[in-house]
């Protein structure tokens, strides 16, 4: 046993001596391409550079893990703040967009009002009524502003409806697409006359009482005729979407309204003489 220990100790000594000599030799020897550095320096640098690389990778991994996961607790709070800020900015953007759109609409309304030869007053839609079949909106002008029942309501896109109830500071407007609404109308191209009425369905307007002999084509513009003594003559109602020969004397004509009744916001109320006025050719 003791002999074995001695041999082991001697073996370790031999190993140490060999290593010591190798280190000593390599400290004095240079290799081609080592730029004058000794083998010891080159090997030491090589080994330590690998250790440094491994350490850097290790620390980099820890740092990435820290930044990617643990530090996310702070990021979460920051994210929440930013999310709220984005939501606020989105709302603000929507508001700005709405203001811009409103400004555009008002500009168009003002331009139309200036062009029209009849007296009008601008009003804002403050409430709607989407009850099926009975379609009305409430505007913010009333008798205090000179409004009365049966006054026509128009928009830059075309005819909207008529005032059916007038309060002091507000009025109810029956839209032309209401099933009880109607207006004298004619085909702008062929001057074939009839009555446009509201219907339930799509499209929500129908042009009645146009004889089968009349020249009506799909795409023809339908305008008010002024015969009803409510709406000024020449206001756009819509376009013919389908025109078929009817079973009786009259054609079956479907009309797509020019006004988007779902997005009414500002309108003009014709406060001038109820009938006889014509805006045809002036829009």
């Amino acid at each position, binding site marked *: 046993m003791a002999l074995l220990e001695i041999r082991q100790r001697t073996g370790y000594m031999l190993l140490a001596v060999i290593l010591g*000599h190798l280190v000593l030799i390599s400290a004095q020897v240079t290799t081609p391409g080592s730029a004058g550095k000794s083998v010891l320096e080159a090997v030491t640098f090589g080994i330590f550079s690998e250790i440094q690389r491994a350490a850097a990778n290790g620390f980099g991994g820890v740092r990435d893990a820290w930044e990617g996961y643990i530090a996310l607790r702070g990021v979460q709070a920051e994210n929440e703040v930013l999310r709220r800020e984005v939501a606020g900015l989105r709302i603000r953007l929507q508001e700005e967009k709405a203001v811009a759109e409103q400004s555009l609409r008002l500009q168009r309304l003002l331009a139309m009002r200036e062009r029209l030869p009849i007296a009008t007053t601008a009003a804002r839609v403050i409430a709607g009524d989407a009850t099926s079949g009975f379609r009305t909106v409430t505007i913010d002008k009333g008798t205090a502003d000179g409004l009365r029942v049966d006054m026509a309501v128009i928009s830059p896109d075309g005819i909207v409806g008529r005032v059916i109830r007038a309060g002091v500071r507000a009025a109810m407007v029956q839209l032309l697409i209401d099933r009880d609404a109607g207006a004298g109308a004619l085909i702008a191209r062929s001057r074939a006359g009839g009555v446009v009425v509201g219907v339930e369905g799509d499209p929500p307007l129908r042009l009645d009482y146009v004889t089968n002999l009349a020249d009506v084509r799909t795409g023809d513009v339908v305008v008010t005729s002024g015969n009803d003594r409510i709406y000024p003559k020449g206001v756009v109602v819509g376009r013919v979407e389908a025109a078929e020969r009817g079973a009786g004397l009259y054609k079956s004509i479907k009309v797509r309204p020019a006004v988007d009744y779902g997005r009414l916001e500002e309108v003009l109320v014709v406060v001038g003489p109820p009938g006889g006025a014509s805006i045809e050719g002036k829009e």
Partner: protein
Amino acid sequence: MKAARVMLAIAVALAMQTTLAGLTFGSRTALDLVLVVVVFTGLAYGPGAALFAGTVGGLAQDALAGRIIGVTGLAKSLVGFFSGVIGSQFIVTQPLPRFTVFMLATMAHEFCTRGLYALLAPGGFIFQWAPVLGQGIANGLVGIVAFQVVELLPGAVQRRRLGRGGIRPRVHE
């Protein structure tokens, strides 16, 4: 004490080696007295002592010769260690086995030295048998003589002292 003796022997060997630098066999030094001391130490004291002797002696030779320090040291350390192993594993007490060990040690030392230089410097591995064999024979002879002197000298001195005192040692015939 053992270390001191080894150090003293190496110092003497180095001194003699430098004195005998002009004695060559072919293109090589005919004798390597430091190697003789190292192998002697291995055979007499074992691998540990020989390792120490080889390291010290080889490094000193490298330093004095102005070569790469460590090459001869490593070669002598290895040779000394394995000489010690042979000395401790086998009965190497007769002149012929000792001579053989010195011969083999010389060749191994030369082989290691040339091999290391071939690795470290351009020029390739050059091993010339004749000079190495000549050096091996010379080292072996010197080693045997050294063993004889070391082993017989104490007895001769004692006999001489006894002879001066008028006492004759008993001789069994």
